[in-house]
């Protein structure tokens, strides 16, 4: 089952953002989406989550056609984070828990635990404006993890993080995903990261995005793979 | 600033839509009578006598046509304001009741709720006068504010009667509310309703110029008014906003009450003056010299 994307066409008004995108993500798989800035990666991710209505083609999640948000199945990290400016880091992480009806005490515990995992235990009470850029991004990651959805759509979740933190978080994420068998679609602009984390990599053309190639990781030597990806993107 | 323009006389009138208050000045204006007497007059309409008096005290208005009660009340408060010309002595006030009301005559008001504008107003005075002259005790005055609020309250039945100039009854009838008006003019002969007033200092300084011209213009206007029904009615329609039928009725009822001689009924002013403590408008009754300047009505 997982996600099946067939002949997806996306547009904003007249402006085409993606054309004829077809790929699938199997349950438990980690798939990265890479492509030049502005090509349409975020748009594809939005369509996957039912937040952007396709102009053509369709997206199916677990065999069911996506027509709107599927909060019980899909969790998001948005590229621009979309944190609530008036809520503290902890209360931001609590949002999906509250929406699921988790009782107040448990909510708080779970939020603190997740904030601890992303290294923010000490700033749990600060509001986003009082956090550094990277800290905000980690709050958004913690919030996505707080949802118990089986699918995670992550839009450049590590962009504002230093290498150490992103390596740590990446490892943590992989461990967590493996434990819980989550399915992940991951937008990144780091080839290294894509190679390190993914089962498969979907390479998109410059906008409007089309599929350039879908590469399965593991069958090739990482160095060659990296070189190949570089070639695909920089050509 | 129009007030600074030299030579212009700002003449205040109260309730400029009232027939008795406004018509002489409007006639004089429309017929060019002010101009004929060498006056450049601008008529300013005030919604309340107290506002007019304040404007006179502040100097933006030089003279005004107010009620006798306004003059004596101001004088009693130590304001330099004197009556110098009477435009109408009989009061146009009437008790207005619904046609089906059991109140048929003034004594029937005993124990009834009567709408007045405010405590201490001319309408309040009128209620006290009715009680005093007819023995109708226990009348409950209900302050309702603006005339429109009074007519609304009467129409809704919140009060049994209201006190307003008689033409309001005609207007109500014309608008389809069947009402009866009981005039109170013959309750007493001691009455001075329409009165020109100005600060004593201004009267003294101007006695041979503007004041005389003003009184002469008023006399001529009132004479003209009483002799020309169609023109006066027409003016009441265009300037005071009356419906033609209402204007005709008001003319026929009220035009005779104007006093072209300008004679002031001092007993009327005295009656107002004596009522002041009862109306809680002053502690002491003012003397005639305080509120009356006889120099101009002598002729």
């Amino acid at each position: 089952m997982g996600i099946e994307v067939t002949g997806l066409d996306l547009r904003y008004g007249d402006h085409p953002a993606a054309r004829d995108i077809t790929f699938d993500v199997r349950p438990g798989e980690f798939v990265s989406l890479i492509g030049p800035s502005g090509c349409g990666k975020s748009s594809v991710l939005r369509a996957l989550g039912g937040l952007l209505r396709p102009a053509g083609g369709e997206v199916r999640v677990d065999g069911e056609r996506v027509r709107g948000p599927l909060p019980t199945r899909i969790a998001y990290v948005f590229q621009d984070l979309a944190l609530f400016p008036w809520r503290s880091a902890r209360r931001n992480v609590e949002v999906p828990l509250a929406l699921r009806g988790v009782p107040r005490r448990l909510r708080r515990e779970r939020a603190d635990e997740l904030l601890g995992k992303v290294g923010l235990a000490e700033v749990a009470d600060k509001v986003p404006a009082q956090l550094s850029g990277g800290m905000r991004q980690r709050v958004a990651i913690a919030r996505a993890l707080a949802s118990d959805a089986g699918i995670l759509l992550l839009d450049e979740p590590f962009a504002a993080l230093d290498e150490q933190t992103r390596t740590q978080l990446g490892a943590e994420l992989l461990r967590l995903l493996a434990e819980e068998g989550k399915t992940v679609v991951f937008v990144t602009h780091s080839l290294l990261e894509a190679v390190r984390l993914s089962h498969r990599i979907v390479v998109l053309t410059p906008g409007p995005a089309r599929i350039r190639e879908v590469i399965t990781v593991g069958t090739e030597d990482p160095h060659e793979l990296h070189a190949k990806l570089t070639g695909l993107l920089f050509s | 600033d129009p007030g600074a323009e030299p030579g212009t006389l700002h003449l205040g009138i109260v309730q400029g839509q009232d027939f008795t208050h406004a018509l002489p000045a409007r006639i004089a204006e429309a017929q060019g009578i002010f101009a004929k007497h060498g006056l450049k007059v601008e008529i300013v309409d005030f919604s309340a006598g107290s506002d007019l008096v304040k404007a006179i005290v502040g100097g933006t208005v030089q003279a005004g046509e107010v009620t006798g009660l306004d003059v004596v009340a101001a004088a009693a408060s130590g304001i330099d304001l004197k009556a110098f010309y009477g435009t109408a002595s009989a009061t146009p006030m009437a008790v207005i009741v619904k046609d089906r009301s059991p109140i048929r005559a003034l004594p029937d008001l005993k124990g009834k709720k009567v709408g007045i504008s405010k405590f201490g107003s001319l309408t309040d005075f009128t209620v006290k006068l009715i009680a005093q002259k007819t023995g109708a005790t226990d009348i409950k005055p209900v302050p309702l504010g603006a005339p429109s609020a009074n007519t609304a309250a009467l129409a809704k039945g919140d009060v049994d009667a209201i006190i307003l100039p008689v033409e309001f009854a005609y207007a109500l009838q014309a608008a389809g509310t069947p009402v009866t008006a009981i005039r109170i003019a013959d309750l007493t002969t001691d009455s001075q309703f329409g009165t020109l007033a100005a600060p004593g200092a201004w009267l003294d300084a101007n006695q041979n110029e503007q004041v005389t011209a003003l009184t002469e213009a008023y006399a001529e206007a009132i004479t003209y008014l009483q002799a020309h029904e169609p023109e006066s009615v027409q003016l009441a329609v265009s300037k005071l906003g009356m419906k033609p039928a209402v204007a005709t009725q008001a003319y026929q009822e009220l035009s005779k009450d104007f006093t072209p001689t300008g004679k002031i009924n001092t007993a009327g002013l005295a009656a107002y003056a004596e009522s002041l403590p009862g109306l809680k408008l002053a502690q002491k009754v003012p003397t005639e010299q305080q509120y009356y300047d006889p120099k101009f009505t002598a002729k």
Partner: protein
Amino acid sequence: MRLRWATIALLVVAWEVACRTLVRSDDYLAPPSEVLTTGSAYLAQPDTVAALTVTTTRFLAAFAVTALLGVAVGLALGRTGCLVPAARDMMTVLYTLPLVPFYPLFVLWFGLGFRSEVAFGAIHGAVPVVLGTMAAASRVDETLITATRAMGAGRTRTLTMVVLPATVPDVVGSLRIGAALSLLGVLLAELMVSVDGVGHLIAALIANLRGPELDAVILAVCVGAVAVNVLLQAGERRLSRWREQPTPSAHRVAR
């Protein structure tokens, strides 16, 4: 659009029906059919036209003062930061103050007629504009302000470049209230003391229970305010086109 006109039509019909069945007396509220016939004939009379012209002029002048003064003071106060709470309380008091007892002071200082009436209208209108603008200005994104200052904008440029555009909707919203209130202020002034103008007319029409004419005059007065509103709205549309989400499809889903 169609929805709006349909609603208006519905309201007019309801008004007509109510007048013919429930109220049954046209002393103040006349059925629209009569407002249209009797009322509009009255409106066409030269005296009425003159009064309307006078009042409209006063209202426009009062609103101009309201807008300029209100927005300027509101922006200035809103950006002082520490003054905001105090200024807000002060303005609210001024706002809730019954101004009628002070009108004689207006007459004394501004003279009879135009200037005192305009001043009275402006003071009614300006306070809500100051309040609204001030509140909006104090909520502007601080990052943008810092960035603009860092690019070399002084106080004024920061105001015109960041604060004003960012607050357009709130400013326009409060200008609408300000327009309604400055019209009210002018009318109140004319009702209390008047040489001419619509206030005078309205007093006479109310006193004489001339419903159709009264309603027609009130409606005519509102036309001025409506015109101002339409202009404000057009201005706002132009200035805040960026807010209109250019992703209709995304939005239909998101709703």
